[in-house]
């Protein structure tokens, strides 16, 4: 491609974008909207999956809370009985004091908040390790029949819920993203249509002259690409600002409650590179598609 042609293509594309800036802004806005929704979905799914994974590693076990007032002998008996249950690999006892201490340790300086507690709110707990996750339901059912067991918590349930949630967000997000994607393509194709109409005489003339395809289509496709690219850049900026703000906000506010948060949430810098590539690709893709739809319809001569 010669420099003259490139210059012509860029000049025409920029001229049209400027002349047609309201529609251009709408196009950029629509691409940004699609990508922000998509980015939101991606980030939520990524985080939920991450949480589920971390949770799985940490909580591949059953916690049996012992009711208040059960005496030590009874507790020991229970432990022995638990070991007998089919599917149980190991049983470990955790006193309520240990639970409180470990929370205090986790909270660090914020542990001051716990200083005024008159009673230890944590229960004595048996941690039951399973031989096989598939036996979880069976074991839980048996554990619940014991007297003195206040509650049985199996974190695999929470993990499953998280995975289900991620799945739901994925499906829902994919649906919305596809609809918005189509809307964006439509809006961009309309913008390009307006460009074609406003340059109709010139474009027709070019077709009569037998202008090379690059001259006729180049500026129109470039315009679509630029709109898509600008939309994706705005989306990247907004998502990154929004995400880092959210993380900082959560970290600042709930540091005491979820001190291990950094492990659960995926950091901005972790997703930045991928997100930039995904967004720019989709943005440019929407732009090209919008242009092509319009060209097919309106370059009729």
């Amino acid at each position, binding site marked *: 491609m010669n420099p003259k042609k490139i210059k012509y293509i860029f000049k025409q594309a920029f001229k049209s974008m400027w002349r047609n800036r309201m529609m251009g802004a709408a196009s950029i806005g629509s691409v940004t909207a699609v990508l922000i929704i998509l980015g939101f979905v991606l980030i939520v799914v990524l985080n939920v999956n991450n949480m589920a994974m971390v949770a799985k590693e940490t909580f591949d076990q059953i916690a049996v809370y012992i009711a208040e007032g059960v005496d030590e002998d009874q507790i020991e008996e229970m432990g022995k009985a638990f070991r007998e249950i089919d599917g149980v690999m190991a049983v470990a006892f955790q006193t309520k004091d240990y639970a409180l201490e470990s929370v205090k340790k986790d909270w660090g300086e914020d542990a001051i908040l716990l200083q005024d507690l008159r009673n230890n709110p944590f229960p004595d707990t048996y941690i039951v390790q399973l031989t096989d996750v598939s036996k979880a339901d069976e074991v839980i059912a048996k554990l619940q029949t014991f007297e003195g067991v206040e509650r049985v918590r199996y974190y695999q349930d929470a993990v499953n819920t998280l995975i289900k949630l991620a799945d739901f967000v994925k499906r829902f997000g994919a649906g919305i993203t596809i609809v918005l994607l189509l809307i964006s393509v439509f809006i961009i194709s309309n913008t390009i249509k307006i460009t074609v109409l406003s340059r109709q005489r*010139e474009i027709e003339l070019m077709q009569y002259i*037998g*202008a*090379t*395809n690059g*001259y006729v289509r180049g500026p129109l496709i470039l315009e679509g690409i630029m709109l898509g690219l600008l939309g994706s850049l705005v989306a990247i900026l907004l998502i990154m600002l929004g995400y880092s703000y959210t993380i900082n906000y959560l970290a600042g506010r709930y540091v005491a409650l979820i001190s291990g948060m950094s492990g659960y949430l995926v950091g901005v810098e972790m997703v930045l590179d991928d997100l930039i590539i995904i967004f720019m690709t989709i943005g440019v893709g929407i732009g090209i598609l919008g242009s092509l739809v319009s060209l097919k319809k309106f370059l009729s*001569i």
Partner: protein
Amino acid sequence: MIEFSHVTKIYKKTFTAVKDINLKIDKGEFIFIVGKSGAGKSTLIKLLLREISPTQGIITYNNQDINKIRKRSLAEYRRKIGFIFQDYRLLPKLTVYENVAFAMEMICAPSKNIRREVPLVLSMVGLSDKAKYYPDELSGGEQQRVAIARAIINKPETVIADEPTGNLDLETSKEIMKILAEINRRGTTVIMATHDREIVNFFQKRVIELKSGIIIRDTRTGGYEDEPEED
């Protein structure tokens, strides 16, 4: 070189624009296509430019069925034909020189060739001294001469003009015709649609007359005076 065989074009399934056209045009001919507006002149030209496709029949150019040309090769085909419009279609923001050079740029001609060819063609149409003018600073006849220069700059085999003198007075029209005749004399086939009787009678070239989409006359050299009720 150009051949229409049994060409029919029906618009929207109901309106027959041209019917069973059989026509042979040799290289180097000068042809007037005459008839009232609505007789089918424009349809014939659009068919030849492959702006539209015939409902029936075959149109060949250099023995190639033009309706079998792929879309991507269409530009190449159109370069064989220089087209002149009734309303000139100059780009208003470009000078005379730039308007003509535009046609060369669009087919990626080297700058060197553009700088060499454009002045030559402008001098042929007698506009050397107006190269830096803008279209709205020119008279109608001058604008049409720029359009002719643009049509021939890429050395097409055929020039098609659709009512090129339609917006011009007789004297100016004759100047335009002289240029077209000169182009033809240099070997280019010229096909001109018109309903300007005086022009046709003055030049005495081959005349194809259309009426209601049918060729009613094809005279080797002749005038266009048979139908006095023409406007």
